[in-house]
């Protein structure tokens, strides 16, 4: 896949970091603003924008691209590990909120919910980007 015109490349260069940071902001403030799913989709969108604007050579793609797939599996593994840890800590219930709750509205509050948000954000971002990369690799390698 080739890149686009210099105008698109320059605008992408200016804007892609802001989009990525906005996604990270939504994920980490998941218990105050929209949660991990939306933030993960925004982060994946920034990577997709980068690949579309600069062409697929920027990522040095191989035929078997495994990095994003591994990150996605690690995200869902982190989610289940957090959920299972609740069985061994505190009230011994699956999915229990075992960390102290803190003050409502603070950044560090709500117990485990921010950690769940980060896990789901990683998982969604990596999953959407893996789907996109699989299509790009299919086009590059197979349809050539």
């Amino acid at each position, binding site marked *: 896949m080739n890149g686009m015109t210099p105008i698109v490349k320059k605008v992408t260069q200016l804007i892609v970091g802001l989009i990525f940071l906005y996604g990270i902001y*939504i994920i980490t403030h*998941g*218990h*105050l*603003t*929209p*949660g991990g*799913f*939306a933030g993960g*989709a*925004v982060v*994946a*969108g920034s990577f*997709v924008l980068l690949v*579309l604007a600069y062409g697929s050579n920027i990522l040095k793609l191989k*035929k*078997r691209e495994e990095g994003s*797939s591994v990150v*996605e*599996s690690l*995200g*869902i593994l982190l*989610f*289940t590990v957090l*959920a299972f840890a609740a069985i061994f800590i505190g009230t011994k219930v*699956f*999915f229990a*909120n075992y960390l102290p*709750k*803190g003050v*409502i*509205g603070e950044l560090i*509050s*709500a*117990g*485990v*919910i921010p950690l*769940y*948000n980060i896990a*789901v954000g990683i*998982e*969604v971002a990596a*999953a*959407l980007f*893996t*789907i*996109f990369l*699989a*299509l790009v*690799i*299919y*086009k590059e*390698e*197979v*349809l050539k």
Partner: protein
Amino acid sequence: MEIVLSIVIVFMILGAIYALYAKDLLSALISCGIVGYGLVICFLLLQAPDLAIVQIVVETITLVIMVAVVLNSTREELKEKAVVNIDGVSYVHQRYIVNVILVVVFALFLLYFFKESIFTLDHFGEHVTRMSTAYIEKAAEQTGSANLVTGILFDFRGYDTLGEATILFTAVIGILTILRAKGKK
């Protein structure tokens, strides 16, 4: 607000109908985009910014992927004739008759039960879900989360969120399996 909502929904319906009858697959896809972005405006008008952000981002990414797929295809829908020929005899008319009879019978059947059920429900706007009232009253104290939607999703309904994440995981595995089966040859 309801008038604006109705106008947006009418646009969404028109876009969906156009997507069915468009000759070009790309224009069908863009009219599908009308449905998605109209839904964003509906969510904003109904005061659900969480869903609006998720919808606008996911809609954009899926639209980009679908446009990339369609631009590599022939951009035309495959036409299949609905004619059944057995021994040179056309059975089209028999099929039409059977279809019309089936549609009428099922419509009457469903209308009867709709009439029965509509009188036992509460009036419009009076919800019967007592669980949601309890959530709204106590979710902030019990979960410690300022955003009630996230509090409910990750605490009270953790199983739902786990299933949702697993669905995405399974979808990715399926896509990788399909696309790499050819790539390995």
